[in-house]
């Protein structure tokens, strides 16, 4: 059969972000692929060099809409290391709490996207509805749903009160129950197995060779997690398991993420119940002595690594950011080869590239010929009422 090369992206309905895959097809089967990136290059590393350390905090937060806390934490870990600042334990605990809430939010989002890509839209609706609980926790603690801005150089910007603790624990308890259901669903639902088993295979030796990180690597049986390998924040004091799976396919990636949710809930409980007392930040001078630091962090998608060089002024000399998707995309071209064209969106989604979301909607009322804009509260109320009719009552939360 003749080989045909087709472009997939940079603008394609199945892709959430601009990237280009050149797929070589033999019929419906993929025999080769190359990935082209750079469509979303924003010049942040250059921009960082002309901004102060504190301004960069807000720039770096916007590297990614979902791992916003991951990037700022990696960045300020470097800044604090160079400034030789002793960050209070309570600040580290709050950072850990936000980090795990972020992981929960990201993994639930991924479960939804995966469900959507495999045509299981009920799963998408369920997980994104439940994800609102964790977004509410983040909003409660930080004042924002996606860009929490909880970090500041030398500590965190907001303390956690007793009421907030209780509220977060209540929501996490609810999510624990829901996650048990998702795990059951992932392991027992025949549609999921049919759609994900043996799709996007990545054997351990290839994952190692191609430098896969995070859940993508762990689903290929590689026990690689910065939280265990080089514990940062409070991870050396927390009790959690490193989750791996050995099916090397999309199914494994689904199981790893679902089980990691349980570990994150465990950690959130531990952090909240043993929050150290004390101040939440220390003063750090604006100017930072010359030096170099490199730190990594286990973001929801895998290892995030930053390099920072200071030159004695209040602006960095050089900042380098390597996000986990960059490392994982190298594995995608392997996963695609030999697979079917129809599985492409799912395989790409399985490494969890990111996308952003919005919190209001405009609805056109055809009968009245009027536009109604729904705010967050109204939309939420509408959602709750809708599910009440179907026998699922969330109004207690």
């Amino acid at each position, binding site marked *: 059969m003749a080989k045909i090369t087709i472009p997939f992206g940079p603008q394609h309905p199945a892709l959430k972000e601009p990237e280009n895959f050149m797929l070589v097809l033999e019929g419906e089967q993929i025999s080769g692929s190359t990935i082209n990136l750079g469509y979303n*290059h924003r010049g942040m590393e250059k921009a960082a060099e002309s901004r102060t350390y504190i301004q960069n905090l807000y720039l770096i937060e916007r590297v990614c809409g979902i791992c916003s806390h991951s990037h700022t934490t990696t960045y300020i870990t470097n800044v604090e290391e160079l400034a030789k600042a002793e960050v209070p334990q309570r600040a580290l605990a709050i950072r850990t709490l936000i980090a795990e809430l972020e992981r929960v939010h990201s993994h639930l989002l991924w479960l939804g996207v995966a469900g959507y890509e495999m045509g299981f839209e009920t799963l998408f609706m369920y997980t994104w509805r439940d994800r609102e609980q964790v977004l509410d926790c983040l909003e409660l603690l930080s004042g924002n749903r996606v860009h929490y801005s909880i970090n500041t150089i030398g500590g965190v910007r907001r303390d956690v009160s007793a009421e907030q603790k209780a509220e977060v624990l209540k929501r996490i308890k609810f999510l624990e129950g829901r996650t048990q259901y998702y795990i059951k669903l992932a392991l027992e639902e025949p549609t999921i197995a049919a759609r994900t088993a043996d799709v996007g295979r990545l054997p351990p030796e290839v994952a190692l060779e191609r*430098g896969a990180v995070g859940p993508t690597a762990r689903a290929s049986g590689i026990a690689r997690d910065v939280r265990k390998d080089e514990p940062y924040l409070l991870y050396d004091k927390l009790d959690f398991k490193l989750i791996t799976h050995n099916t090397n396919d999309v199914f494994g990636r689904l199981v790893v993420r679902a089980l990691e949710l349980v570990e994150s809930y465990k950690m959130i409980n531990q952090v909240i119940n043993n929050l150290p007392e004390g101040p939440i930040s220390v003063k750090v001078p604006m100017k930072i002595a010359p030096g170099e630091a490199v730190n990594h962090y286990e973001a929801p998608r895998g*290892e995030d690594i930053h390099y920072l060089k200071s030159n004695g002024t209040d602006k960095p000399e050089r900042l380098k950011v390597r996000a986990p998707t960059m490392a994982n995309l190298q594995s995608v071209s392997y996963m695609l080869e030999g697979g079917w064209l129809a599985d492409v969106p799912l395989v790409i989604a399985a490494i969890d590239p990111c996308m952003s979301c919005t919190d209001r909607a405009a609805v056109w009322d055809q009968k009245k010929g009027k536009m109604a804009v729904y705010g967050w509260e109204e939309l939420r109320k509408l959602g709750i009422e809708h599910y009440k009719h179907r026998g699922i009552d969330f109004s207690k939360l």
Partner: protein
Amino acid sequence: MTEFTQEEKIKAALEAKFPGSVTNALVQRRNRVWLDLAPAALPEVLAWMKAEGFQYLSTVTGFDEGENLGACYHMNNNAMLVTVKVRTPRAKPEIPSILAVFPVAVSYEKELEDTLGIKVLGLPPGRRYPLAEDFPVGQYPLRKDWKTEDYLAQQAALLKSETK
């Protein structure tokens, strides 16, 4: 320095194995080792490190120091990060490719060529990354003498002449 046994071990091994090439090796703190390397020895040293358990090349950071351009290769064995730094003169910046050792480094090497103008010897030709296809050739935005304001002024002038 007895508390950093692993770090001291890898530092000593590198110094003993590649005398002359490895200089200024430093154990900065727990799990962090830094060293300078002669560019010619780069593929050989990284291959040796890969065999010694540093299976991951986390990323490559290009930099501009004025006289010299260069790159940091952040080697990772999960816990420990060893940063291998090579420098090359600005007048003729060249670094050997490490694709034979780490095939995944292709986008990192393209980034060095695109953003800093460091010629990576042995990198196969192909589409540019990460800059846009219509970004002017021969401009290297991560060099310190490249100013965003100049570029924007240049683009604005171009746009004006096009609209006429």
